[in-house]
Each structure stands twice: as C-alpha cells, then as structure tokens.
C-alpha cells in the first residue's frame, strides 16, 4: 500500500487548520480596529494612522490638525488597553492549554497551581499594608505569584515520586492558604477605601492600563508564548502520563518544570497587572481543541490567538455598555460557566471529563 495516499487526507486537514488560523488572525485584527474605533470618541483609521505617524515624528504637518482629544483617547487610553487585553488573553489561554495538557485534565486551569490566588493575596498586602500605588501593587502581586511557584517546587521535591496528584494537592493547599490570607485582609480592611480598592482590583480591570503595563506584559507574555509554542509538540508526550513520557525519552522533571515556570510567569504577570480574569484559561483551550484538534503544537498558539480575540472583544463590549463599564471577570464568568455546562453535557467530552 502506498503510504503517501494515506497521508493525503491529513494534508487537506492541515490546509483547513491553516485556514482557521488565518481567519482568527484576521478577526483579531478587525476586533483590534473596532476596539480602537468604538467609544464616546470615534477614532477612524485615518486618524489612527495620522496619530501614529506623528508619534514617531514622521509627519509634523498632520499632527497639528488633529484634535487633541482623539490623540489622547486613542494613543494614551485605547491603544495600551487593547494591547494589554490581547496579550493577557493570549497568555492566559495558552497557559490554560499547557496546564490542561500537563495535568492531563481538561478542567485544569492556571489557578490550579495556586499562582493566581497568591498574586491576589499580594494585591491585598500591597493595598492593606502600604496603601500602595499601581506599580507597587503589581510588583507585590508578581512577587507572591512567583513565591507560590517556588514554594510548590520545594514541596514537590520533598515528596517521593512527584506525581501530578501531588502537584494538584499542593496547588489546593497553596490556594487555600492565600485565599484565607486575602479574606483576613479584606475582613480587617477599611470597607470604604481599602476593601473597595482590593475588590475592584481583583475583579479584573483594564481601565487603569497605561503604557508602563504594556512594557511589562508584552515582553513577558511574548517570551512565554514563544517558549510554550515552540516546545508545544513535546507536551503531547507529557500528556500521556509520567512514566510513559519518561520511557519515551523525556526528562520529566526538567520539562515539567520548564512548562510550569513559563505558565506561572505569564499568569502572575497578567494577574499582577490587571487583576484576576477568570475562566479564559479554562474555556479557550477547549474551543481551540474543537477547531484545530488536540495536537498541542497547534492548540497552544491557536489558544493564544483565540484568547486574545476573546478578551479584546469582551473588553470592547464592556467599555461601551450604555450603563457604563463593569469589571471584565463578571462577563467572562457569565459566558464561560454555561459553556462549561454545555461541555459537561456533551457526549463527546463526557468520557474525558469524568474518566
């Protein structure tokens, strides 16, 4: 039998996947343009090009004619905000895909590591003890996120046969501790100032985003995404189970450590900058797998693309609600919870969810 003929359907399949990637990328570009354009101040493509050109000092002439308001809205508010929303969405979704593969559990999410909860606790500490400004809150949050990660690793290395179950248990323990710590801080804080600020931060907000957030988030998420995508195919092997992966030649501790490190990096930077955005890391990889199949080499980059699109769209919508902006986590939860419900009910997934 000629093996080339048998591979033919797969090349067709690859074309289809390419198309899915391209369409999503185009949708992302359109969404990005819309997010720039929509709002109280309409900024059209012509304005955007002019403002950008003048910002790079390429056209003095045009810039003078521009309305200052448009420039402020577009360049100082919407552009950094939408860049951050896209990168946070991309980072969280890719991180979720990796966690699900690594933990061999379709319900795993970046939160499983306890990193998000630790980062949240950091927000509480910074605001409660130091009445800190934005940058300090972010740094504290990031510090606690990384601390949770290092702590996880120390615990795991002390336990014999560092299985995935142990990792999950340690994640649960870490989450519980930091959750309790945060609750304590909230209980002790002044309900009219600190508590409001902590809560608002934790609900997830893009309205405070500035170019300094862009400078932190974009490089970190980009590095994480590049690593996770480049080494995506290997994750298929780790998804087969610890011993099988080792027998197939994988240095388990090294690779699991690397994946978790980059996931935690991306998640803690995202949480530290814009608060807790729930569910993105859980549902986007499922949609991605539905559209491009389960090969992690495709799921991870495609999750990133889809996550960026998803969060950018939701952010654009909540920014333009007639009754004013609401925290983004409310919407992501409202969309994701029914989606997960449908997922559990669908026959196709039931087997893998409740194995």
């Amino acid at each position, binding site marked *: *039998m000629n*093996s*080339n003929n*048998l*591979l033919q*359907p*797969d090349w067709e399949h690859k074309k289809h996947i390419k198309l899915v990637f391209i369409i999503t990328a185009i949708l992302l570009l359109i969404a990005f343009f819309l997010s720039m354009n929509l709002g109280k101040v309409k900024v059209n493509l012509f304005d955007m090009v002019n403002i950008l050109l003048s910002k790079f000092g390429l056209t003095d002439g045009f810039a003078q004619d521009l309305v200052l308001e448009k420039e402020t809205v577009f360049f100082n508010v919407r552009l950094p905000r939408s860049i951050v929303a896209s990168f946070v969405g991309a980072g969280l979704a890719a991180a979720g895909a990796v966690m*699900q*593969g690594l933990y*061999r*559990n*379709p319900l795993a999410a970046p939160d499983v590591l306890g990193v998000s909860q630790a980062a949240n606790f950091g927000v509480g500490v910074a605001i409660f003890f130091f009445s800190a400004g934005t940058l300090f809150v972010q740094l504290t949050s990031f510090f606690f996120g990384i601390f949770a990660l290092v702590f996880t690793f120390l615990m795991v290395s002390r336990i*014999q046969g560092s299985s995935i179950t142990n990792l999950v248990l340690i994640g649960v323990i870490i989450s519980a501790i930091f959750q309790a710590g945060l609750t304590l801080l909230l209980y002790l804080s002044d309900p009219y100032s600190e508590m409001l600020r902590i809560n608002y931060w934790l609900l997830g907000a893009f309205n405070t985003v500035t170019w300094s957030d862009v400078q932190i988030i974009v490089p970190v998420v980009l590095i994480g995404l590049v690593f996770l995508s*480049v*080494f*995506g*195919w*290997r994750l*298929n*092997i780790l*998804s*087969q*189970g610890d*011993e*099988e992966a*080792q*027998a*197939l*030649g*994988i*240095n*388990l501790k090294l690779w699991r450590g690397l994946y978790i490190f980059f996931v935690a990096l991306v998640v803690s930077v995202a949480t530290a900058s814009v608060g807790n955005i729930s569910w993105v890391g859980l549902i986007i990889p499922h949609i991605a*797998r539905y559209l491009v*199949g*389960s*090969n992690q*080499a495709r799921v991870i980059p495609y999750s990133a693309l889809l996550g960026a699109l998803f969060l950018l769209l939701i952010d654009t919508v909540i920014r333009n609600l007639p009754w004013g902006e609401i925290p983004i986590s409310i919407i992501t939860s409202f969309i994701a919870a029914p989606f997960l419900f449908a997922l559990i009910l669908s026959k196709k997934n039931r*087997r*893998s969810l409740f*194995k």
Partner: protein
Amino acid sequence: MIDVRDVAAGYGGKPVLNNITFSLPKGRIMGLLGRNGCGKTTLFRCMNGLLKPLGGSIRLQGRDISQLSQREIARTAALVPQATAAAFAITVKDMILLGASCRIKAWQSPGRMLEEEAAAHAAEIGVLPLIDKQFNELSGGEQQLVLIARALMQNTEILFLDEPTSHLDFTNRYMVMDMVGQLAQEKEMTVIITAHDPNMVLEYCTDVLMIKEGAMLALGPVAEIMTEANLQALYGECIALKETDFGKVVVPARRRS
C-alpha cells in the same frame, strides 16, 4: 544485549527485589513470570531508567544505563505500556509519532519523513487502515498494536512489553502476541515481556525468568524451566502442566477430569 547483574530495587530504600542476575542474547524473547506484587514491574521500571536500582548494574547493548540520559535509554530500549485511554483525543498517527521524540531535537516536531515512517510502521503492524482514527475509539487489542508501532518509531533493538495481553480478549491476545513474535523474528529484536498467563510464555517466549517474593526462582530456556514443579513453586498447587496435541498447556489443577 541485556545484562542485569545483582540488581536490588525498591522504594524508599526498602528493597522489594534482590539479587536479580541474568543476561539475554540478541533475538531472544524472555517472559517474566511472577505473582502480583513479586517485583516484576519494579524490575521493568529499573530497566527503563524509570527507577534507580538500589544496587547492581543494568547494561543494555553493553552500556550501563545509569550513565545514560532518559533520552539515550529511549533510543536503546522501547517500552510498550499497557494500553489505557489517552487524556486528550489523539489520532493513531499522532500517537505513533510520539515514539519519534527521542530522535528529534527538543524544539522540533516530526516532519514528513517521520510521518511516512510512522505510516510504514503502522502498515507493518497492520493498523494502517486505522491511522486517521482516534486512538481512544480503538479496541484494546488495536490500541496495544498502535503502542507497539509507537515503540518501533524509537528505532531500538530492545523491546519491553508490560503485560501486553492481560486485559485483552482471547482473539486479541493472540493477535498481539503473534505480531510480537513475528517482529522479534524479522527484526531480530530482543524482547522482554511481563506476563500473567504462563501459556503465553510457553507459546511465544524462548526464555523465562520466574520471580517469587522479590528473588529469582528459576531462569533459563522455556523448555527446561517451564516444568510443573517450577510452576507449582511459583503459583502453588493450583496449577498443572498437561501435554496436549498442541504442546504443553498450563491448566488449573483442581478441575475434575
């Protein structure tokens, strides 16, 4: 080909396996017999580099595996685990391709050359018609065959099979084992199989190692070692060896005849 010398192994410093010594020349198929919990799996894990022995040495193709990286071990000996459902949907072809991971760089994914090799191995094993199906939708026997094809992707001369037939139905057992026997012969592979069914060992293996309570009970060619006395020493009085028209067959001893 495989040299195991004075191996002791266990968990948390407590040995469950002691003084295991054997060597298996190229092209032989050795069955590993023993009751549940006797240390068969522990020995297997040591030979794959999944567990560090507490003492002794294991050499595969003349190389001490304690000196080899996990990747190098995977290029020397391939393990066929018991088939279980994959956590995520994965096609048969992608499953077979996972075997190529020890042959490519960390950042690479298998290219067209390896995909064609995977198709060739699938054809060899007889699962080519299934290649675009989902792994989880196959029967147990078919899954086991796919995992053998995956092991072949590792391009090794040594093959370890961990109870490849214990959860298969009668037809599938013989389908899988016929394939293993055929491969070993055609490719001159050296094979070790852990087995629960002594009849499988009688029919397909050239050598046998019996392990009882962590120690070697008997070792040698199947014809010499698979005696009723040895089998009863291993499994107890409940077992008997009968001559039939199809050769020796292990039967339950308390059955009225």
